[in-house]
């Protein structure tokens, strides 16, 4: 058994720093790289893409990325684990096999995890008494059933462990917990038992630290943010994991950013609920047991993590279409910038009321600094400018479309010294609402397929 493995974070969200995963495999030793691509609404976007073209529905950025890193990871035997398969891990695998062929790389093993997509099984599940009602609001699924766009089960680390066991160099999953991507290699390498809750919780904590990329190594850091060295060339975090569940959070040498107990603490606190109950399909981690210690520059030790038995359920993430929004902005310049913007907002609302349009909400916010005054903006104690940002939401598409035509006229028929409409009329976009539910683990089975080409 290895005494230590290095797991690198390569991507904190779809659209994150493009150079980060390349740096992670080139700037120092790593054994694994995990990349999180899926936010809650991402699955619905991918599901829509797949409906238009059955070859789409995965994170397409993976293709140019693998064109760049595939030779590195093959040569160094770095295993890559990502949930970027979205709603179409098969198509994602084929695209990466095509990259391998193009680069002349042979005997590449790719594992995929299927079975999380239950969109086509919702009614069959309902007939078996699995209702998928909203776990937070307790609303019945029937209230939105006809509008559902995507439905995916969050699998944990275990299907990935199976793919690694079968020798996969790359593992592509659909909806998998972010933490499972990091926990899986630890279970695989250290042979942790599936009910060794403390160790599974330790790996889960490592996963939470890595899942948002640079947010653990100096990015979006509220304490002494000006002191972070060379953040332009930030090194993404790396977990050096040990068989006993302890780990060191670090980053490659000669990269920017900072790993300290403070940067790690901020990430540990990010988007959590009750810290004693961090629930995943693999275990329940107790964040109040985590012990951190700065042991050297850019090296933080994590130990002491306690866990409890996993629940009998998987979480299901569903999305459904729920109306439309549109946003528009106008910029008002000094003098009386805020008063002008406020007045424009009042005028706009009167006109919208005259038109008897139906909205569930109209919201106006005021933003801005120096687009009108350039360098002169620095010297003013008064507001140089205010950007009026108006948003509307509703189920009546015609009302939303009509709103889009009411913003530009304010330029010639409202308060003076106004600009910033070059982008044209606001474009309505669909609201994709989120519907969390629970499903008994016995009702779904992950399907792991490892192929070589």
């Amino acid at each position, binding site marked *: 058994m290895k005494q230590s493995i290095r797991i690198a974070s390569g991507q904190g969200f779809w659209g994150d720093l493009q150079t980060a995963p390349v740096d992670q495999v080139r700037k120092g030793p790593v054994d694994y790289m995990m990349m999180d691509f899926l936010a809650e609404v991402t699955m619905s976007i991918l599901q829509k893409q797949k409906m238009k073209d059955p070859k789409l529905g995965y994170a397409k950025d993976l293709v140019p990325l693998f064109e760049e890193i595939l030779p590195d990871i093959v040569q160094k035997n770095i295993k890559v684990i990502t949930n970027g398969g979205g709603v179409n891990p098969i198509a994602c695998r084929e695209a990466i096999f095509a990259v391998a062929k193009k680069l002349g790389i042979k005997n590449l093993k790719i594992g995929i995890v299927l079975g999380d997509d239950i969109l086509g099984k919702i009614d069959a599940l309902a007939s078996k008494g699995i209702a998928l009602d909203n776990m937070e609001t307790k609303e019945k699924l029937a209230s939105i059933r006809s509008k559902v766009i995507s439905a995916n089960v969050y699998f944990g680390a275990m299907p990935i462990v199976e793919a690694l066991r079968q020798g996969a160099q790359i593992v592509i999953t659909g909806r998998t917990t972010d933490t499972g991507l990091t926990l899986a290699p630890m279970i695989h390498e250290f042979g942790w038992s599936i009910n060794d809750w403390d160790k599974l919780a330790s790996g889960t904590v490592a996963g939470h630290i890595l899942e948002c990329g640079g947010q653990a190594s100096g990015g979006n850091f509220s304490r002494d943010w000006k002191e972070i060295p060379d953040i332009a060339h930030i090194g993404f975090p790396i977990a050096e994991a040990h068989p006993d569940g302890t780990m060191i959070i670090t980053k490659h040498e000669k990269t920017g950013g900072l790993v300290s107990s403070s940067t790690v603490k901020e990430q540990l606190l990010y988007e959590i609920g009750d810290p004693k109950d961090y629930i995943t399909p693999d275990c329940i981690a107790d964040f109040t047991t985590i012990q951190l210690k700065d042991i050297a520059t850019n090296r933080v030790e994590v130990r002491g993590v306690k866990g409890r038995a996993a629940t009998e359920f998987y979480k299901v993430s569903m999305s459904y279409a729920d109306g439309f929004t549109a946003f528009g902005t106008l910029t008002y310049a000094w003098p009386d910038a805020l008063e002008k913007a406020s007045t424009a907002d009042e005028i706009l609302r009167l006109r919208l009321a005259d038109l008897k349009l139906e909205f569930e909400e109209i919201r106006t916010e005021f933003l801005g600094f120096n687009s009108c005054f350039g360098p002169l903006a620095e010297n003013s104690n008064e507001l140089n400018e205010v950007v009026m940002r108006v948003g509307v939401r509703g189920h009546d598409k015609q009302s939303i479309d009509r709103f889009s035509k009411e913003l530009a006229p304010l330029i010639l028929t409202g308060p003076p010294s106004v600009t910033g409409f070059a982008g044209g009329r606001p474009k309505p976009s*669909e609201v994709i609402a989120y519907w969390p539910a629970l499903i008994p683990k016995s009702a779904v089975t992950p399907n792991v397929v490892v192929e070589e080409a």
Partner: protein
Amino acid sequence: MKVQLIQIAHARSGDKGDTGNVGVIARKPEYYPFLEKYLTVDRVKEHFAGICLGKVERFELPNLGALNFLLHEALGGGGTRSLKNDAQGKTLSSVMLRMQLEINETILL
């Protein structure tokens, strides 16, 4: 003495649907008891008046010298439904850190 929270703490915030989460971390271990004592649910609820429309929950993480707050109904519906510029609550941390606290003890800053 009067203390602005940013002098004794740092913070990070994010979203879960329409609920914002704000983690508040003591800048030094000795500041944590003051956070526990003065950064109460009621004080936070009062500070976020007009922003957080639902209840406030607080969880303690003494091991990290930190508190985690959940601000319910704070994100204009959350996700793609929200009309807020900051629909994901990323700046709720700044709003929290601007809070003024009146404390009875003397803190060495």
